[in-house]
Structures are given as structure tokens and as C-alpha cells.
């Protein structure tokens, strides 16, 4: 009896891998791309979820931060809320107010929520004291760690306001609240002493609930709380989900998109690896028979065929991990900026779990056909390898033969029906490739629509400002607040720092007089407070016909007169308001009631912005004018001439440059293009592999056809026709599926970014484009089949006829 050591088995495996170069390449590339996209998606998921979740869990973060009016509810009543059903822990009441501190160099910090606590806390919102110590006496404050930096070191002093009798506050510590309950802390007595005049004192309570995982649950908890207390006592709440969303927002928006690509990649990898391996076994029946005839055991045959898949897959997986890590770097560095000082890298376990999972998938995909190979009886295997081919698909040949098309084409069209499983694998590969392409095209267009919908005031040709222009274009526009957690300091003040020095009426008159003016409107920007909303929100006030600078509307309409306000989705979700509700907005010490007339697509400032008519506020004056010039007028020349007029008044004018793409959008588009290219390539490789298998199997038949006079061109036509139908079917399934995926993922991305999306972002496909995308499925199939088609045309007829 012949005994085979590992050497014989090893030689068989090596020769199998070496002989089937196309299959080896397809397995390696398919797994590489699937693993790369899974590593990117996985690391982003971990990076965007872990920092917040870990910090929140460690600090026993507050599910709901609630502010109460102390004139309407007593401390005893608030203490009674601790025993409400569903409340598992609570802290407070803490005296709370809002102050506008002034930095050491006279610069204003944004309006900050100041909470009086005697210590960092324990049961709820246990603050993480990053440096320094807790405030022990009046005149000491602890700042949010997001302010820590060279502008505000420990020991630095601030003024509580810019009034003459402002108190001096010394920074004694920096702390982090995962719940985002405040930006500044002091002793309760200190807070009460600062809550005078315009600074209203409220009581802050922090709650944890047994059910607070969803918005609906939080809303129910909030209602329960409001119902337990006198009407009007609850003036504002902040959900931990909003804080989490705001923190994760930067990179969280990429997760659904990466998840979709990750799933597509993994499914495609499974399909292609499975079809490659089963195809390899199917076309190796004779070889299996011979191996068994010379003494290989069924187990050794199984081992040989699984190993033939695992070797190239392992190489592909290793390369995929490297590629995935390289691709994740730019995304993670972007995420890192969102989380401030937290250093992010691909989680080590992602680099372990993803390749291990991929290897398992490959092993299972290979094991099923390998077991079939192992079970084959020796005689049967040899006989099947030499016997006439299966008679499956004869009906298809009969039907295709009736089509009014050249015979090689109809012969090719019917070919896939001889191997239905292989044909289904090809259809799935093309379908997934088409889904990826359709989704990516839609995503890119949606992201472009998002980019063009941002900062609509940038669409102006020229901007004139009433103050000095300062650093250049953009001055006088809406100041973007730093991203959540990003370093903030006096230099990044978000308060109403633009001090007008020119009379806005004079600047407006100059614009009206300037030849070439087509239209213009004025804006004023600054912090405002809204009743029931902790802290401040950013306000932009518009004067004149501001339609050209309007935001994309999700619902309702843009401003059309005084008394109106347009707000983003984030504002509505945070406050629980709806279109038609009235809000009280205080801007530059003037409080007015405004009716919400529209929901705008505006993600700046975490969606906490208000857009109102400037004339609603009697004291507000425009700081900037956004001008459209007449056709044929050069914005640069216009701006130069206008600047000549308004500079002596104390203002300035400049032409707007084309807005730059948002980093995240550019990054997402690049990722989409890259991942799509990878998936479409995998689809093409899948088709290539299947057609190679098919062509090799049919080489004798092709030889017969060639002997009968089939020309090389007709042979190419036959092979290409054999995948054309598959391409059509893949396109017909893939385009609607990609369309549906886009329709599902985009709103989820929007939700992750804290906004609903307007139709301009969602409805991006047009019919000709969808038809072209459908044809892309055919192109993927034809490109994948072109190499084996060329080989089939070139193969020598006499050689093909000799092939068994």
C-alpha cells in the first residue's frame, strides 16, 4: 500500500494552486478587498462608538439633563423626582446660569453654562477631572477640558462678563462631562452670586433611567418628569443620545456608508470564493479520481482542496489587513480631530477578528465542495471527468435557437443554463458590483448636493462688511463654532465679536448705487439664547430678499417676513418643537417671539442654529451684505470698486472665492470611489473566473465549432454572449437594489449627522443615469469575460479537439 506523507499532499496542493492561477488570483483579490473594506468599516465603528460609550459608562452619565425654573418648583419637589418610576439614579438640584466670560486678553469666550457643584459627583455624571482640582471657594472655576490649552492654562483668570462689576474667576481645574451637562463649574454659592440681572438662575437635575436607549424612551421619560411637576417648571432638557450624536457626528455619518460597503464586500467575497472553489472541484473531477486511484484518502482530498483555497485566501487576507489599515488612517485622523486629544488607531482586535472571520468564511466556502470531492467514488470521478457533459440547459438552447440572432450569439446566450449554480454565482457577482456602482454614484451626487447646500451665503459673488475685513474673505459671515471637543480658546470666540464700525445704512446705500449690483441682502450673526435651550445657539439674521442665500428646506418654507424663524432638524429634535410652534429668542439683549416656519438643512453648530428676519429685532443691524452681480460683471472688479467706497466708511468688500469641498465629503467621495472600484473589480474577477472555468470545460466543443468554421470573431461573440444575459439580469436586479440601498443608507447617514435630508440630497438619480448603470452590469460581465473569450478565439483548433 502506498503511503503518502505530508510531502505528497503538499505537492498536490502546490501544483493545484500553481496550475489554477486565475482561481488563485481571484480568491486572493476577492478576500483582500473584502477584508480591507471590513477593516475600514470595523475600525471606524469602534473608533466612533468607543470613546463616548466608555466615558459615559465610566462617569455614570446622565441620560437626561433637565433644567427647572426655581420660581415654579421647590427643591423638595425636585428631590421627589428621584423616586419616580423608572428613575434609577439622579443628582441635583444644582444652581445653573449662563455667563459670557471675558478672557485675559479681553477676548470673549462663547456664552457658557455654569453649574454649581460641590464636587465632581459620584452617582450620576461623575466628572472626569483631567487636571487641577475642584473649585473650593468663590472665585474658582473648573472649565470643560475642551478649553484646556495654551490660551487657558491652570491659574489663568477670567472676568465673569465685560461689565465693570464683573467678578474675577481663576481656573483651578479642567474636567470632562460625557453627558455635556455644562462647560463650567463652580461652587453653588459662586453660581448664585453670578446669576444676577440678565443671567437667569435655573436648577439642574441629572437623571439616569432604566429605559433610555432610544429617543422614544427618552421622550417618555421626559414626559413622565414634566407630568410629575408643576406646569412650566421644566424649562429645558438635553438627552444623552443628542450628546452622543453630537460627539460622534463627524465620523458617525460615515458608518452606514462604510457598513453598506463592508457588507457588500463580505457577501461578494463569500459568493465568489464559494463559486471559485466549487468550480475548481467541479472541473477537477478527473484529477480527484486519479488522486484517489493512486492512494489519496477522502480526508486527504478534502484537505487538499480546502488548502488550495486557504493558501491564496490567507495571502489576500494579509494584504487586505494592510490595505484596510492604510485606508483607515485618513478617516481615523479625521475622527481624531472630532474627539480632540483622543488618539485613535485601528483597534487591534479588528485586525484579528476580521481576518479570522474571513478565513473561517473561506474555509466553510471551500469545505462544502471539498467534502463533495472527498465523497466521490474513484471510478465515478474518473468516469464523470471523461463522460459527455451534462444535458442541463438543452431547453435553453432550443429556445435561444429560435431567436433572430446569429447562431454563435444564441449558442452563447443559452450556455449559462448548463451550469445554473455557476450562472447564479455570476449573476450575484454582477448584481453586487452593480449595487455598489449604483450606490456609489448616488452617494457621490448626494454628497455633492450636501456640499453645495452648506453655507449658502458663500454663493454670493461679493461680500461687503461693515467692520474691518480682517483676515480676508469670510469675515462677517457666520462663524462656525469649533467641532465638539475641539480645542477652543479666546481666539476662537463665538460671541458677537464683529464690532461694526461702518454705518450699515451707508454701506447698503453704496451697494445700491454701485453699477453692476443685481441683488443683495444683509446678515447679522451672533449668539442667541432660546427659552428652554441650555446655553446659546448661533443666530443668523437676514435683511432684504435673502432667497438667494437660503438653506435647502426639508419642510416648511424659507423666511418671508418678520416674526419668522427657520431652524435645522437638530434644533427641532433637541427642543421637541415643530413647525408652527413659537420660540422666544434673545439676541443682543432683545427678546422676541418667533414662529417656526421651516426646517432647514443645516448641520453647523450641531444643528443648534436659528435663522430669522433681522427686522424682527429692532436693535440688530447687518454686519455683512451678500451681493449678486449682474451677468458679465467681474466680481473681483466689482468688489474692488465697492471696497473703494466702503473702506473710508470703515467697512470693506471682497469677491468670494469658490467654496472648497468639505474635508469629510471629499474623503467620503474618495472612499466611495475606491470601495466601488474594489467591489466592481471583484465582480469582474468573479465573472472572469466563471468564464475561464466554463471555457475550459467547453474547449472541446469550441474546437468542434471552430472545425466546422466558426471564426475567431464568432468565437469571441459566443463567449461574450454567454455572459451578456447574466450582465443584463445582474443590472436589472442591481440597479433597483443599489437605488434602494441609497434610499435607506442616506437618511441613516443624515440621522447620524443629526439631520433629516432635503429632496435635493435624496432624489439624485435620473432615468438615463439608471439605464446607464444597468448597462454597467453588462459591461462588468463583458469585461470579465473578455480575457477568456480572447483565449477561446486563439486556441488552436487541433489542440482543442484533442482536449478531453
Amino acid at each position, binding site marked *: 500500500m502506498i503511503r503518502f506523507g505530508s510531502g505528497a499532499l503538499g505537492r498536490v496542493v502546490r501544483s493545484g494552486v500553481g496550475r489554477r492561477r486565475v482561481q488563485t488570483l481571484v480568491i486572493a483579490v476577492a478576500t483582500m478587498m473584502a477584508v480591507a473594506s471590513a477593516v475600514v468599516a470595523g475600525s471606524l465603528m469602534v473608533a466612533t462608538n468607543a470613546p463616548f460609550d466608555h466615558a459615559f459608562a465610566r462617569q455614570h452619565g446622565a441620560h437626561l439633563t433637565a433644567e427647572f425654573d426655581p420660581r415654579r418648583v421647590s427643591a423638595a419637589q425636585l428631590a421627589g423626582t428621584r423616586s419616580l418610576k423608572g428613575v434609577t439614579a439622579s443628582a441635583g438640584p444644582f444652581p445653573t446660569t449662563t455667563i459670557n466670560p471675558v478672557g485675559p486678553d479681553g477676548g470673549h469666550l462663547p456664552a457658557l453654562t455654569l453649574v454649581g457643584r460641590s464636587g465632581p459627583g459620584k452617582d450620576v455624571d461623575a466628572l472626569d477631572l483631567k487636571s487641577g482640582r475642584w473649585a473650593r471657594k468663590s472665585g474658582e472655576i473648573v472649565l470643560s477640558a475642551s478649553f484646556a490649552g495654551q490660551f487657558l492654562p491652570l491659574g489663568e483668570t477670567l472676568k465673569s462678563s465685560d461689565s465693570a462689576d464683573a467678578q474675577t474667576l481663576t481656573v483651578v481645574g479642567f474636567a470632562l462631562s460625557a453627558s455635556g451637562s455644562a462647560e463650567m463649574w463652580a461652587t453653588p454659592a459662586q453660581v448664585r452670586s453670578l446669576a444676577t440681572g440678565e443671567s437667569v438662575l435655573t436648577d439642574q437635575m441629572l437623571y439616569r433611567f432604566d429605559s433610555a436607549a432610544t429617543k422614544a424612551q427618552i421622550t417618555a421619560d421626559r414626559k413622565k418628569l414634566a407630568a410629575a411637576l408643576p406646569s412650566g417648571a421644566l424649562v429645558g432638557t438635553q438627552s444623552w443620545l443628542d450628546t452622543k450624536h453630537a460627539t460622534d457626528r463627524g465620523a458617525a455619518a460615515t458608518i452606514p456608508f462604510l457598513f453598506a460597503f463592508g457588507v457588500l464586500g463580505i457577501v461578494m467575497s463569500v459568493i465568489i470564493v464559494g463559486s471559485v472553489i466549487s468550480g475548481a472541484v467541479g472541473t477537477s473531477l478527473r484529477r480527484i479520481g486519479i488522486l484517489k486511484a493512486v492512494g489519496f484518502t477522502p480526508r486527504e482530498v478534502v484537505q487538499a482542496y480546502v488548502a488550495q483555497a486557504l493558501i491564496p485566501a490567507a495571502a489576500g487576507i494579509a494584504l487586505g489587513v494592510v490595505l484596510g489599515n492604510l485606508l483607515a488612517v485618513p478617516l481615523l485622523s479625521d475622527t481624531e480631530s472630532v474627539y480632540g486629544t483622543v488618539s485613535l488607531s485601528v483597534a487591534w482586535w479588528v485586525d484579528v477578528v476580521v481576518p479570522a472571520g474571513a478565513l473561517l468564511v473561506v474555509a466553510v466556502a471551500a469545505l462544502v465542495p471539498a467534502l463533495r470531492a472527498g465523497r466521490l467514488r474513484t471510478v465515478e470521478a474518473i468516469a464523470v471527468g471523461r463522460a*459527455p*457533459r451534462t*444535458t442541463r*440547459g*438543452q431547453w435553453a*438552447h*432550443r429556445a435561444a*435557437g429560435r431567436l*433572430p440572432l*446569429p*447562431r*454563435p450569439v444564441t*449558442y452563447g446566450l*443559452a450556455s449559462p443554463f*448548463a451550469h445554473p449554480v455557476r450562472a447564479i454565482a455570476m449573476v450575484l457577482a454582477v448584481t453586487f458590483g452593480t449595487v455598489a456602482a449604483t450606490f456609489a454614484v448616488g452617494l457621490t451626487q448626494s454628497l455633492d448636493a450636501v456640499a453645495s447646500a452648506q453655507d449658502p451665503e458663500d454663493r454670493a459673488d461679493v461680500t461687503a462688511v461693515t467692520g474691518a475685513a480682517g483676515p480676508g474673505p469670510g469675515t462677517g459671515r457666520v462663524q462656525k463654532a469649533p467641532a465638539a471637543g475641539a480645542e477652543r480658546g479666546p481666539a476662537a470666540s463665538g460671541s458677537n465679536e464683529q464690532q461694526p464700525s461702518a454705518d450699515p445704512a451707508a454701506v447698503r446705500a453704496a451697494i445700491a448705487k454701485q453699477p453692476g449690483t443685481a441683488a443683495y441682502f444683509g446678515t447679522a450673526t451672533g449668539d442667541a439664547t432660546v427659552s428652554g435651550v441650555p446655553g446659546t445657539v448661533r443666530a443668523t439674521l437676514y435683511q432684504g430678499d435673502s432667497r438667494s442665500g437660503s438653506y435647502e428646506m426639508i419642510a416648511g418654507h424659507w423666511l418671508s417676513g418678520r416674526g419668522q424663524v427657520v431652524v435645522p432638524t437638530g434644533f427641532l429634535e433637541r427642543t421637541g418643537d415643530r413647525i408652527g410652534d413659537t420660540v422666544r429668542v434673545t439676541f443682543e439683549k432683545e427678546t422676541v417671539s418667533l414662529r417656526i416656519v421651516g426646517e432647514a438643512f443645516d448641520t453647523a453648530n450641531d444643528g443648534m442654529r436659528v435663522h430669522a428676519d433681522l427686522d424682527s429685532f429692532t436693535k440688530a443691524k447687518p454686519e455683512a451684505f451678500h451681493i449678486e452681480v449682474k451677468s458679465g460683471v467681474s466680481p473681483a472688479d466689482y468688489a474692488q470698486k465697492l471696497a473703494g467706497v466702503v473702506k473710508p466708511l470703515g467697512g470693506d468688500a471682497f469677491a468670494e472665492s469658490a467654496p472648497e469641498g468639505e474635508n469629510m465629503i471629499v474623503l467620503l467621495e474618495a472612499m466611495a470611489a475606491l470601495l466601488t472600484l474594489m467591489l466592481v473589480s471583484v465582480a469582474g474577477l468573479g465573472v472572469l473566473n466563471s468564464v475561464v472555468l466554463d471555457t475550459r470545460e467547453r474547449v*472541446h*466543443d469550441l474546437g*468542434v*465549432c*471552430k*472545425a*466546422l*468554421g*466558426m*471564426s*475567431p*470573431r*464568432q468565437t469571441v461573440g459566443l463567449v461574450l454572449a454567454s455572459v451578456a444575459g447574466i450582465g443584463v439580469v445582474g443590472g436589472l436586479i442591481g440597479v433597483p437594489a443599489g437605488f434602494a440601498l441609497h434610499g435607506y443608507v442616506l437618511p441613516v447617514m443624515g440621522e447620524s449627522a443629526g439631520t433629516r435630508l432635503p429632496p435635493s440630497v435624496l432624489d439624485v438619480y435620473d432615468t438615463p443615469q439608471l439605464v446607464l448603470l444597468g448597462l454597467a452590469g453588462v459591461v462588468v460581465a463583458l469585461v470579465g469575460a473578455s480575457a477568456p473569450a480572447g483565449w477561446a*478565439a486563439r486556441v*488552436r*483548433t*487541433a489542440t482543442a*479537439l484533442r482536449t478531453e
Partner: protein
Amino acid sequence: MTHVIELEGVAKRYDGADAPALGPVDLGVAQGEALAVTGPSGSGKSTLLNLIAGLDRPSEGTVTVAGQRIDRLSEHALARFRRERIGMVFQFFNLLDDLTVADNIRLPAQLTGTARRAAASRAGELMEVLGIQKHARAYPGRLSGGERQRVAVARALVNKPALLLADEPTGALDTASGQDVRELLVDLHRGGQTVVLVTHDLELARACATRTIHLVDGHVAVDTHAEAVR
């Protein structure tokens, strides 16, 4: 006399082989002639047939078939030449299993662009003549060896070729079926068809051929036509 086949100094050498598989050979086959090529295995019979059919190219010499020099034709032109001038019958039939008998027979006509109805009509005629009409809608796998070879002959004749090449046409058949095919070839020759027949079967050669060449180690050892001329 008009030669349908004209080989001048034809030799075929395969890569890596020291000696040529064939030749050099000079050979002329007249129109209406039935030539049998015999010889032991490896003597070059199939190589000779492949060169005449344009399935392979000679290493040396020229091959002219039906007035056309084919050794320098492109693959495309060779394919056109084969479908218009050559009919081939193989030892193992080489029918396409997934096509019906009628579709197999029609295939070469359809490759030339013959109209569907005309191709069907011609195939119908041949099936009737060869007695396989009742199998028109059947698949080759269900036919006997003799029936399959009749289908192969019908397919070879569908484009009315100038030359019918048969490679061991009875080699895979039982005695009765072999006899059947033998008679068919005799009938075809009697009808004026030029035939080149490669066979081990001397009985078949004697029955079907008007001339026999015997190849040994790639060279023509015996040519009954030359002997007759002498």
C-alpha cells in the same frame, strides 16, 4: 486533371520534436477522387488531415485546397474556408450534446449566414437522405453510434463542401454500424463527392477509396495511384 488538394513539400514539425511528424510530402488529390490514408499510429495521418482541413499550419511547404492556398490564411479566413469548402467527420462524432440533431446539422450553415429557413430545408433533405429524419428533435446522447455518425455526416455535408474529410469514421462503431457508415461513404463518393479518409481499417479503405496512400514515419510509403500510373 484538376486537383482539389495540392500539397508541395509539406512538412510539420512540432515544438521540441527532433524529427518532423510529417513529410516532406507531395500529394495531389483529384476532384471526385476517394483517397484513403492508412498507416500505423504516429505515422502522421491525422497531421496530414489537419493540414488539409486548415486546422493546423505546415512548418514547410504549401497547401492548396479547392484552388485556394490555405497555409498563409489568417484564422478568420481559414474558418471561412473550412465552413464553405470542407466537411469533416470525426471518429468520436464531435456532436454538440446540448443541441438537437437538427440544430447540429444546421450549425455550419448558420455559421455561413445561410437564412434560417434555407438551412432548415437543407438539413431536412440530408436527414431524409441519411434516414435520420425521425431523430430530428432528439439529442445526440440518445442515439446509437451509427446514428450519431450519420448525423455527423449530414452536418459535414450541409454546406455542400468541395471536400469531405473523415478521420477514422468507423473507429468508434460496432461492426453493423461501421458497415452502415461504410456504405454511406461509398454512396457519397459515387455521387461525385471528393473524399479523404483516414483509417486503420484496410477493409474500409478498400471498400470506399479509389486510391490509398500508406504513411510510415511521416512519409508516403505506398501510393496506389502512383503504382497504377507506373
